[in-house]
């Protein structure tokens, strides 16, 4: 099989997007569905083929050499810069490829049911396919610039899909906020790339960049490496919604719920984590940058979790939970646990997609009601949704031994804790923050579960009567829930003496980076840490159960007067802070520059002022030649007199 398979995988969804985007309005709904889901299924099947090819290649040429490469054309050549349009499949992109096309396909299927009655059905699927195309560019790109095409492409699709119902100004505003906030991250990312480009001599190829940072490479100065890493991390913080750039993600919930599942939970938002893992050899070379990254990740994990504790919108809870879980992944990167980051990225894709689609099923059944205070007892009406949601809650909370989220989160906590043991003391803080976040996670997830599915129904009667779930929507839920249960098996902790399959698979990608870290062999510690994590999770679960699983329809009274509660309800008022400190001053500056600097000063005083001055001087000089002979004669006589005075 030739390596053109990679190009084909990327092209299929693009074709789907073009067909539905151009002809969709005139095509029958069935055909739109077929094109949209078919192209993604095709990409998934081809991906399976490509990954198995990579696997067999690995057997033949060894793990370090195995890689599928497709060179399409030379994209940009100018001066020293040479960038080609090319793809590569290595173990890391293979994992991402399967997650993106697999979960992506399930969400496409779910969307068929969810968007069934929307009048712009075709446009939705055109955008969704365009997203798949961009995401595949992002993960298969062989150099930073191809990755960046995908990076911005997914941002564009996110913008279009958040504002999918564009006649609602608030939704359009949310889309714009997402785009602009991501651009703030891109600003930083681009600066990092510019500097990196200088030291790499115009080459951005991932494989060759490894040598640039290597022992004989051009990039050795630790300060420069730290600056580059921090700038690149700025980009990751935008895309992967880390503090302080996370603000767009909660608002992004304005989009259709399957979009939240696909883009704003399972795939796009993990792009920042993926990018840092892709450049692990670079990030690992800067201890300072790694410390900052770990602390930002752990801080974000706890910060977002505290907000999720009190939210009442089912999607908002999940959105903050996503921010928090992304924090865990970023923390993993920061402590050198690149495999752990990708592992958690994968398990999170399963359980969070399941949770979001579950919430979609609820919202669909509840006629677009999203307030969990208006729900309750929905398990009776939506049994499959409730069951899969419960399983996924266990997974994200890590409240059941060896369920996927338990294993992957444990790996991150273990890596952070042992890093602190090896003299990197700030990592103890990171571990503490993350452990606290884990406790909060268990609480808010089960608060959400009990308020939605258990207890008594609190909404209006009519909705209750009609509430039901659809098969096209429940099948993806069941598949995802199954994956959420067993997904952890590919990365069992070493203490169990089972092979860590994911670690072995990814080893060639992260080998260079791992040389910068010493990993603890103290695996008996792992039992203790697992025990701590499980205890924290169970405390959270049972606290939520005690508070929110109630036989009656009333809700526990929220401490609405307490300052801390209001602060959490208002999401720490970070949006207000940005408005006051950045946005409003900048807008005022723009206004002042326009009315004062441009219209009054530059154009008024300098330009038109000069014209007026010339006019005035002209007016003045006109007196001298007014055509009056007597004046002229007088002037001549006076002039002659003065001249004579001087001469004589």
């Amino acid at each position, binding site marked *: 099989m030739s390596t053109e398979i990679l190009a084909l995988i990327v092209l299929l969804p693009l074709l789907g997007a073009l067909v539905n985007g151009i002809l969709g309005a005139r095509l029958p709904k069935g055909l739109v569905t077929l094109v949209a889901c078919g192209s993604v299924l095709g990409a998934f099947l081809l991906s399976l083929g490509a990954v198995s090819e990579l696997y067999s290649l690995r057997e033949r040429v060894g793990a370090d050499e195995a890689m599928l490469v497709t060179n399409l054309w030379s994209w*940009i050549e100018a001066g*020293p810069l040479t960038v080609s349009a090319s793809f590569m499949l290595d173990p890391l992109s293979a994992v991402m490829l399967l997650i993106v096309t697999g979960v992506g396909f399930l969400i496409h299927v779910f969307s068929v049911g969810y968007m069934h009655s929307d009048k712009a059905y075709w446009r939705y699927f055109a955008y969704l396919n365009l997203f798949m195309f961009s995401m595949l560019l992002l993960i298969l790109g062989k150099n930073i610039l191809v990755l960046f095409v995908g990076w*911005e492409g997914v941002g564009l699709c996110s913008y279009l899909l958040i504002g999918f119902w564009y006649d609602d100004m608030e939704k359009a505003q949310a889309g714009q906020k997402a785009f602009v906030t991501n651009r703030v991250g891109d600003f930083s990312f681009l600066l990092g790339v510019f500097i990196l480009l200088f030291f790499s001599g115009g080459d951005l190829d991932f494989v060759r960049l490894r040598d640039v940072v290597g022992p004989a490479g051009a990039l050795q100065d630790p300060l420069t490496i730290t600056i580059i890493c921090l700038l690149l991390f700025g980009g990751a913080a935008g895309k992967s919604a880390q503090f302080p750039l996370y603000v767009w993600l909660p608002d992004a919930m304005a989009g259709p719920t399957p979009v939240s599942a696909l883009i704003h939970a399972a795939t796009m938002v993990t792009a920042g984590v993926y990018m840092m893992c892709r450049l692990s050899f670079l990030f690992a070379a800067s201890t300072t940058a790694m410390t900052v990254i770990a602390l930002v990740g752990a801080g974000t994990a706890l910060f977002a979790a505290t907000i999720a504790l009190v939210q009442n919108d089912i999607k908002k809870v999940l959105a903050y939970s996503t921010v928090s879980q992304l924090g865990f992944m970023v923390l993993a990167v920061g402590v050198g646990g690149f495999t752990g980051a990708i592992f958690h990225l994968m398990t999170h894709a399963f359980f969070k997609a399941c949770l979001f689609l579950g919430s979609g099923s609820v919202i669909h059944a509840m006629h677009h009601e999203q307030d969990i205070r208006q729900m309750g007892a929905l398990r009776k009406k939506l049994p499959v949704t409730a069951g899969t949601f419960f399983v996924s809650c266990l997974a994200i909370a890590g409240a059941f031994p060896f369920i996927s989220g338990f294993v992957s989160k444990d790996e991150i906590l273990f890596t952070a804790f042992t890093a602190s043991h090896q003299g990197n003391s700030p990592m103890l803080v990171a571990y503490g923050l993350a452990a606290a976040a884990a406790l909060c996670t268990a609480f808010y997830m089960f608060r959400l579960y009990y308020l939605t599915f258990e207890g008594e129904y609190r909404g209006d009667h009519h909705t209750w009567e009609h509430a039901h779930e659809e098969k096209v929507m429940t099948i993806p839920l069941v598949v995802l829930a199954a994956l959420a249960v067993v997904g952890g098996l590919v990365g069992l902790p070493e203490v169990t003496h089972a092979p860590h399959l994911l670690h072995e698979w990814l080893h060639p990608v992260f080998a260079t980076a791992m040389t910068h870290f010493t990993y603890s062999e103290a695996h008996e510690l792992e039992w203790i840490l697992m025990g701590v994590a499980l205890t924290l999770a169970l405390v959270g679960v049972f606290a939520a159960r005690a508070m929110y699983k109630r036989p009656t329809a009333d809700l526990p009274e929220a401490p609405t007067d307490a300052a801390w509660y209001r602060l959490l309800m208002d999401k720490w008022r970070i949006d207000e802070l940005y408005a006051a400190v950045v946005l409003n001053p900048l807008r005022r500056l723009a206004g002042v520059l326009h009315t004062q600097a441009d219209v009054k000063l530059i154009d008024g005083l300098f330009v038109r002022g000069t014209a007026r001055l010339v006019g005035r001087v002209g007016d003045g000089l006109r007196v001298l030649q007014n055509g009056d002979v007597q004046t002229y004669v007088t002037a001549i006589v006076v002039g002659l007199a003065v001249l004579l005075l001087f001469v004589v």
Partner: protein
Amino acid sequence: MSLPLLTLLIATPSVGALMLAFVPAHQRTAHRVIGAAVAILVFLMSLPLLSAFDPAATGLQLVEDAAWIPSIGAGWRLAVDGVSLWIILLTTFLTPLILIGAHSAITHRVREFVIAMLVLETAMLGALCATDLLLFYLFWELMLVPMYLLIGIWGGANRLYATVKFFIYTMVGSLLMLVGIIYLYLLAGHSFDFAQILALKLDPTQQRWLFAAFGLAFAIKVPVFPFHTWLPDAHTEAPTAGSVILAGVLLKMGTYGFLRFALPLFPHAMGEFSPLVLVLSVVGIVYGALVAWAQSDVKKLVAYSSVSHLGFVMLGIVALNTQAVEGAILQMVNHGISTGALFILVGVIYERRHTRKITDFGGLAAVMPLFTTTFIIVTMSSIGLPGTNGFVGEFLILSGSMSEGLPVLPGTPWNAWPSLSVAAVVFATSGVILGAVYMLSMVRRVFFGPLTHDANRKLADLNLREILVLAPLVLLIFGIGLFPNLLLRPMHASVNALVERTRPVVSATRQPLEMAASPQLAAPKLAASTDAPLPEAAPAEATR
């Protein structure tokens, strides 16, 4: 000697205009069809340039040299190189689109309109091909007249103010340039030949004064902040055709002038003025973007965005390395395409609603889906989304400029060239945020939200003619975005030659005074940046 391709190219539009003079004025359709046909013919005639052009040659190509006014040493001297090639093609490509696009917007004095456009095309092509300074100046000033008429006759309510301002403002700059040209003419032994003038050895003082004269003319045309205030007025009052040609080609005459004349003729002064130009370019980028954000008129917003975009081009030119200069040339073409398309799109809704105020719209996506899609694609090109043309140009300019500043050695003074370059790139890159802010805010207010005005409910989507005009532009947006090498490759030899020739002098003089005062800093810097030995131009002062 084969056909005088360039002469034919320059002459054809004017011959067409002359023919139109004999067609009775009331036969509007005939004028429109003939005008478009002539413009298309000129475009087709410009295509052989691509095959005749040798991408490996470093100097001027397709040289034509005929006697014109031998008594004063002025010749009909024409040539192209990798700097001008794509701007010439951009001109011949945009003109037919504009003529077809103006079909329904221009309904009175159609004959005069078509003639003005064709004469303008002659002037633009002439200015881009001329390698004789008098000839260049003639075409340069000839561009003003049709433009003056375009705004003055077919413009908006406040058109007289805008035309007079446009005319006088640009005239002031060009007159100073004329003085400079005459001075050079006298120095060169009574010749306007660019090659002879290029061979002159100008001392730093002469260069400084001449650069000021030429540079001001070009800076006004670009426009470089703070010489930009004629532009928003001219754009808002001009008809769509005028705005497209103004943004698409006329503004590039300024940046082209820097590359073709100011830089090679006065490298010493260019170096001295580089920090100033750098700062003004970056101020233009940020200032233009912020002021664009504050606009309530769509067309004014696009006009100010031009100030911002042309700031990027100037930034690439002063960085003066191959990467950045090629980015700058590419960005000139890109700006012509995407801003041209934006003005056409604004013209489309103006024709339907006779307003351009943002608040008069809202929710247009519901009634004009195709128009909305096109607008968003062009917006993405304008804000430099990768995959579109805008990204490649911006990326080359910014990364090229950044390499001017690296590595920043510890202890480098803040106003030294490397630190200035780094700071400039940081501020300029913030343009990617601001661009998204002002463009997307406008898109949101015009296209999204509920349909608030009844007058907008029945708006017709793009018609076939409008699609025909916009489709080539949209195709180019993606075409150049995906295959920029097609444009970059023919530039390599010319740009390399230009950089190699001028860079040693420029980079020697753009080191600020502090550097000279501290030799331990100046030494490694100079060694790093001037690989080639200084050419004759610098030590020439001694021989004078």
